[in-house]
């Protein structure tokens, strides 16, 4: 850890950390450009810096966006990014009642507390988990990745079949390109760019960046921001009394949901809100401006960012789309995330972890005094803003490999993402499956080679069996109420008939 501070406190790394959290906050403030698109966009700019500085900056964008996202939720009722959707419910109502200041203040303090505890948790849990990861073979990796995908589809909104379908399609997309075991090309249609597979960045920028713009431009594009002066950013004692336990609960929920592949900031903020509402003495007041409804979810989404780094840094498995891009960034810089990372590159591991702590301090300093500036940025009309967002996506995608084909893939996935949203399909399972697909395929085929084709290998080994059984339980769980409901419907129909 001392080594981590030595690395993170180097002037260059401090600067990159600052740039990361500043851009992250800006990205969080601006609706329509999330951390996934922003990290993808800025990935090529890190090619000229050291791997440690690159990861510090890219990680800063991620947790910075979580901070910034709350500002738009509270002031405009438009979440800057998905993890701040819940903050709209009570944060905006607080703003309407003239309490935008305490809402923004508790959001910043809650984020700081949770982010800090999340980093401490990461420091404590990651090294022993990395040791455990050394014992993992192909069946354990396959089962763990299956569990990650299952959790994501289980927690996704809408019918589970849609989420599973998206995950399966993501697995197929992951198969495009060179077969890593046999060296044979698949589904490349003689396009050279596809021999390395469909790039994650074009897909993510299309699904989340371009499609979001397409959805926004078909609406009126008007938004109102409070003209009243924002005051009393420092919450008073009553505010603190109503917030401190939601912050602590949100931190625990966010951290552990963040650790699970497929969990993450969005889900943890919803779970935290649900928990606060459930245990509150006044659940009926949620949605009318309860400070606990802001403090809990904001803490949860920030703690989740710390937790999400654990599977990436210790097992090499990204927990969400942002971590998937960070995985790609590390590999571009010659690092292989996984159990050996802590031993082989302690400077990167501890430097990145401690920089998150410093980044949290920077964010607290940035967010409170600069709220006025963020509000001014929010006043930039969307008709002026969206061409710039599109241009950033185009340049970011092109500059990855100077490839027009990849830009075309991005635009095509923008259209696909737009249709997905119209037909209520979620993009997140697709992205996670696209990232995990090649790793899952390798683990599956190696496991079957090891067992001479016996699929029971996944159930004969204890860790793999435990992970697989949880996946099976989660997959089977929705069928139970469906069967009950079905049984209830049939007699009713029979009676009516």
């Amino acid at each position, binding site marked *: 850890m001392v080594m981590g501070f030595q690395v993170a406190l180097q002037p260059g790394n401090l600067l990159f950390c600052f740039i990361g959290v500043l851009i992250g906050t800006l990205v969080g403030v601006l609706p329509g450009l999330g951390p996934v698109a922003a990290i993808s966009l800025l990935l090529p700019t890190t090619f000229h810096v050291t791997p440690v500085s690159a990861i510090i900056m890219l990680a800063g964008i991620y947790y910075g966006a979580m901070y910034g996202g709350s500002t738009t939720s509270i002031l405009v009722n438009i979440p800057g990014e998905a993890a701040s959707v819940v903050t709209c419910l009570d944060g905006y109502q607080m703003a309407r009642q003239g309490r935008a200041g305490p809402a923004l203040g508790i959001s910043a303090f809650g984020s700081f507390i949770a982010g800090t505890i999340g980093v401490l948790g990461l420091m404590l849990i990651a090294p022993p988990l990395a040791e455990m990861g050394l014992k993992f073979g192909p069946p354990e990796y396959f089962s763990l990745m299956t569990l990650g995908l299952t959790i994501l589809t289980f927690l996704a909104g809408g019918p589970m*079949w*849609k989420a599973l379908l998206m995950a399966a399609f993501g697995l197929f997309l992951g*198969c495009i390109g060179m077969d890593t075991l046999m060296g*044979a090309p698949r589904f490349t249609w003689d396009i050279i760019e596809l021999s390395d597979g469909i790039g994650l960045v074009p897909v993510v920028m299309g699904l989340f960046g371009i499609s979001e713009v397409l959805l926004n431009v078909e609406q009126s594009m008007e938004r109102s921001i409070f003209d009243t002066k924002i005051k009393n950013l420092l919450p008073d004692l009553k505010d603190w009394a109503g917030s401190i336990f939601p912050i602590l609960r949100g931190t625990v929920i966010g951290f552990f949901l963040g650790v699970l592949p497929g969990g993450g900031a969005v889900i943890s903020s919803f779970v935290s809100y649900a928990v606060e509402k459930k245990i509150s003495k006044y659940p009926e007041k949620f949605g009318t401006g309860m400070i606990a409804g802001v403090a809990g979810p904001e803490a949860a989404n920030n703690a989740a960012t710390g937790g999400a780094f654990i599977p990436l840094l210790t097992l090499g498995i990204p927990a969400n789309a942002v971590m998937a891009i960070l995985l790609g960034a590390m590999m571009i810089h010659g690092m292989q995330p996984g159990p050996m990372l802590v031993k082989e590159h302690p400077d990167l591991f501890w430097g990145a972890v401690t920089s998150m702590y410093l980044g949290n301090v920077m964010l607290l300093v940035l967010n409170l005094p600069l709220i006025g500036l963020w509000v001014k940025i929010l006043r930039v009309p969307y*008709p002026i803003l969206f061409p710039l967002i599109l*241009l950033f996506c185009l340049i970011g995608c092109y500059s990855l490999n100077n490839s027009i084909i990849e830009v075309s893939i991005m635009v095509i996935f*923008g259209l696909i993402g737009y249709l997905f949203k119209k*037909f209520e399909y979620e993009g997140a399972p697709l992205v996670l499956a696209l990232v995990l697909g090649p790793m899952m*395929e390798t683990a599956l085929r190696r496991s*079957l080679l090891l067992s001479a084709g016996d699929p029971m290998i996944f159930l004969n080994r204890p860790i793999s069996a435990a992970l697989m059984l949880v996946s099976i339980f989660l997959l089977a769980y929705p069928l139970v109420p469906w069967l009950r409901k079905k049984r209830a419907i049939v007699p009713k129909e029979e009676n009516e008939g």
Partner: protein
Amino acid sequence: MERFNNDQVSAAIWLAVAIIICLSALRYDLGALASPGTGFMPFLAGLAIALFSFIGLVHGTLRRKQGVGWKPSMRGLKWEKPLIVLAALFAYIFLLTPLGFSLCTALFIGFLLRTVKPQKWFVVMAGSILTALGSYGVFELWLKAQLPKGPWGF
């Protein structure tokens, strides 16, 4: 279209996609369970898509019987705006190499500013020229992004 709901239509499309994937995967070697081949995983993914889209089709049909019909997702929206944006994006892709980054970007920004929610000509001109110059300065000169140059050398 009114005879079916959104889930039925989308699940049917997915089923067709799954069949195409499975048939295409058969062109590669599927191998055996003891030594899976190149086509094994895509075939498995295709089968999974087929299974879940079939579940979706059944689910959609049950909901149709319960009275859930087609939900028009474009009603009340300015659906022509996304079309304009998409057209501009594809035009940018086709024109980027022949025209070069700066000119193509200026035209792209100017077109979007003028058409999607029409701005004054001054805003369109200033916005497109400043954005093209600014992004050229940041990405080409500062970040060395190697953007395409047109016949004019920029």
